[in-house]
């Protein structure tokens, strides 16, 4: 009897690393399945009704920032605060437009100081950049995104298309999986996308990373049925 139990015990201790490894993988798997299951489900009312939610807003060149500002004007800014704006390092105008918006809000509400921060992020790849150097710049950009996300740890992410939102949204999703911070990710596909999604939109849709995915034209809703059709925002 003693010999048997001793034998079993030694078997277990020699298999301990493997057992731990299997347990670890199983926990990760369950966690991933749980996150995927919870993605897209509305937050429970009790938890969020009182507290404002820290919000990350991703801006982009061209029409992206104009569309985002258009959306921000109708959101409940008292409940989505503090706000963090991120734009690509080479985009000079977007952060300026966001500053103007925040200043006008601060002026009209008479609040001294702004509950908003403005940050720039390295671009993964500039237009026309060689793919060889792009590998390194993408690594740098991803590391920079991770650094910013660790500082911000937003509870809400708003984005509408620029490539800069991909590393940020993927990291936000990883934070959910690891349990660092639960966030709700909202993606509004640009009004300029009528028949085809942008690359950012396609990635976030297919990987089920966005909690809610909005499109502005009916043709896209037919092609991507999990998207919400919300008509034109502009």
């Amino acid at each position, binding site marked *: 009897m003693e010999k048997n139990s001793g034998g079993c015990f030694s078997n277990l201790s020699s298999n301990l690393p493997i057992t731990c490894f299997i347990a670890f993988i199983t926990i990760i798997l369950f966690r991933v399945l749980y996150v995927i299951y919870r993605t897209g489900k*509305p*937050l*429970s*009312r009790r*938890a*969020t*009704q009182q507290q404002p*939610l820290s919000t990350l807003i991703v801006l982009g060149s*061209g*029409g992206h920032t*104009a*569309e985002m500002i*258009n*959306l921000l*004007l*109708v*959101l*409940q800014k008292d*409940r989505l605060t503090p706000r963090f704006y991120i734009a690509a390092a080479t985009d000079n105008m977007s952060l300026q437009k966001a500053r103007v918006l925040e200043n006008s809000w601060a002026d009209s509400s008479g609040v001294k100081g702004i509950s908003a921060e403005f940050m720039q992020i390295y671009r993964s790849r500039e237009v026309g950049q060689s793919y060889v150097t792009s590998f390194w710049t993408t690594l740098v950009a991803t590391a920079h995104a991770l650094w910013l996300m660790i500082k911000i740890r937003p509870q*809400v992410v708003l984005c509408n298309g620029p490539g800069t939102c991909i590393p940020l949204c993927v990291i936000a999703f990883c934070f959910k999986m690891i349990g660092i911070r639960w966030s*709700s990710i*909202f993606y*509004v596909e*640009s*009004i*300029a*996308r*009528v*028949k*085809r999604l*942008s690359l950012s939109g396609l990635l976030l849709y297919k990987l089920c990373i966005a*909690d*809610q995915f*909005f499109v*502005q*034209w009916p043709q896209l809703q037919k092609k991507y049925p999990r998207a*919400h059709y*919300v*008509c*034109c*925002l*502009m």
Partner: protein
Amino acid sequence: MGEDEDGVKPKRVVFVAVGTTCFDALVKVVDSQEVKDELLRRGFTHLLIQMGRGSYLPSKSIGYDGSLAVDYFTFSPSIADHLRSASLVISHAGSGSIFETLRLGKPLIVVVNEDLMDNHQSELAEELAERKHLYCARPQTLHQTIAGMDLKSLLPYSPGDATPVAKLINRFLGFPEN
């Protein structure tokens, strides 16, 4: 063409906008004699070109002897004033430019830049043209579009509304409706 008491034609400005892009093909074709003659024929008196990062420089003209007055500049912090004083806008296919013009209720011809690599911009221009809010053209076909356009047949564009998205986001986050 509707001259006022002094016998001078009322000022009708065509404003051409390329935004922050480089769109030499459009600037060149607008500066061509063919297009300028057609604009004159349709009753326009002035041509103002915002040429952005392009390298082709149009030829300025004061417009004496009844010819089209031509002027240009590269950038402006806000083109809203130029859009407001225009009788016709010819624009690149950027969504910001398109909607800023449509919201001001100005007749618009959108010219798609075929040199752009991933031309998703043409989708928006073609969709809005199908809905009769603007005319859509390529640089080579701009002349025919101007000749055949009927600006009164364009339908006004009612500005969009972001509140449906806001409602869905509020509901998702558990915010009470305002």
